[in-house]
């Protein structure tokens, strides 16, 4: 997956491994299948290994937080825009950058006759990113997940997980001290990233419906999907920036 596309930072944590096609007895996916692999190669120092997982947890946390925030921000924008347009021109506070960009994209999709070429370029760029993301998600849901834990390059555990949660775990005995917990944590993060990716996809779809009234001209959700995709990406960047600023001010 990461080898072909980096459409989303969470998808980039998973790899395609066609050479690892296996026969599995897992649930509805039994038979020959090509897994996507969550492969983490850790330091033998368990403390350093957990630090490696901390940064992944932060990334997943950002996606979960932006998934939580996005619906409220979209609803607030919709309320504000419909209220503003029905009232006399009154001074309103400026919109945050993700909302600003969303409105710009919604008001100039490529089907409109506009000379705002830079906006058209941005819309097409967002549409291309979304197309890649949806293709990746479609491939992602077609496979079970393979979560591997390596220590200094040596495989110590792997768990195969079907989409509905059938598990098959293989341990390399004897299990070194602390590795059981490390693999369990890596497994939980892999599953959290899977759930977060699905939620992001759902949000793009529901957000596209929600923002239909904001289109400059009547249209369908195929016109709003790229704009909402871009909004969700920008929201995550905004949260990452805020988090970075917070940690900088805490350390100074």
């Amino acid at each position, binding site marked *: 997956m990461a080898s072909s596309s980096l459409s989303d930072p969470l998808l980039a944590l998973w790899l395609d491994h066609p050479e690892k096609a296996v026969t599995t007895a897992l649930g509805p996916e039994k038979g020959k299948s090509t897994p996507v692999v969550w492969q983490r190669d850790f330091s033998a120092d368990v403390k350093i290994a957990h630090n490696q997982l901390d940064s992944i947890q932060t990334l997943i946390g950002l996606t979960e937080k932006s998934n939580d925030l996005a619906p409220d921000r979209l609803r607030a924008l919709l309320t504000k825009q419909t209220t503003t347009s029905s009232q006399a021109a009154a001074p309103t506070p400026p919109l945050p950058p993700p909302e600003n960009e969303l409105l710009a994209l919604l008001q100039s999709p490529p089907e409109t006759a506009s000379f705002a070429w830079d906006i058209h370029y941005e819309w097409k760029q967002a549409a291309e990113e979304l197309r890649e993301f949806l293709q990746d998600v479609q491939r992602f*849901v077609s496979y079970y997940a393979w979560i591997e834990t390596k220590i200094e390059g040596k495989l110590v555990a792997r768990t195969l997980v079907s989409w*509905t949660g059938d598990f098959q775990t293989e341990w390399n005995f004897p299990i070194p001290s602390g590795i059981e917990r490390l693999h369990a944590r890596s497994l939980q993060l892999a*599953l959290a990233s899977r759930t977060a990716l699905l939620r992001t996809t759902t949000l793009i779809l529901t957000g596209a419906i929600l923002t239909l009234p904001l289109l400059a001209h009547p249209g369908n959700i195929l016109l709003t999907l790229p704009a909402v995709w871009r909004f969700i990406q920008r929201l995550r960047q905004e949260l990452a920036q805020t988090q970075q600023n917070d940690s900088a001010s805490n350390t100074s």
Partner: protein
Amino acid sequence: MAVDFETSLREAAETIAHYVKDAATLTVETRYVIVDDDGDIDFSQAKPLAQTVIKLDGDSSLVAPMRLRDGRLELDADLLRLHNANVQTAIDYRARILSSLLEMMQSIEL
């Protein structure tokens, strides 16, 4: 481009519908391999250690790891704990992922 969106979404919805339909049981299996004298590992030789099957109708079964000691069978508590940790993760994951899959399927059908 629009056709691409629709195709990807439709195919994802079909795949998800298939998963949800087949979610009547939850199977958790734990296996093991032993490192050989050269330090090599061959996961294709993994042997079963424990298996839990939980059915939607409430039935469940567990094949537990036992050890023969002094002619008596004993439950291997450490291995069972290792297996049970995965069972709990699987149960938690099943609840979350089914809810997400259904939510996604509904939004695709809107």
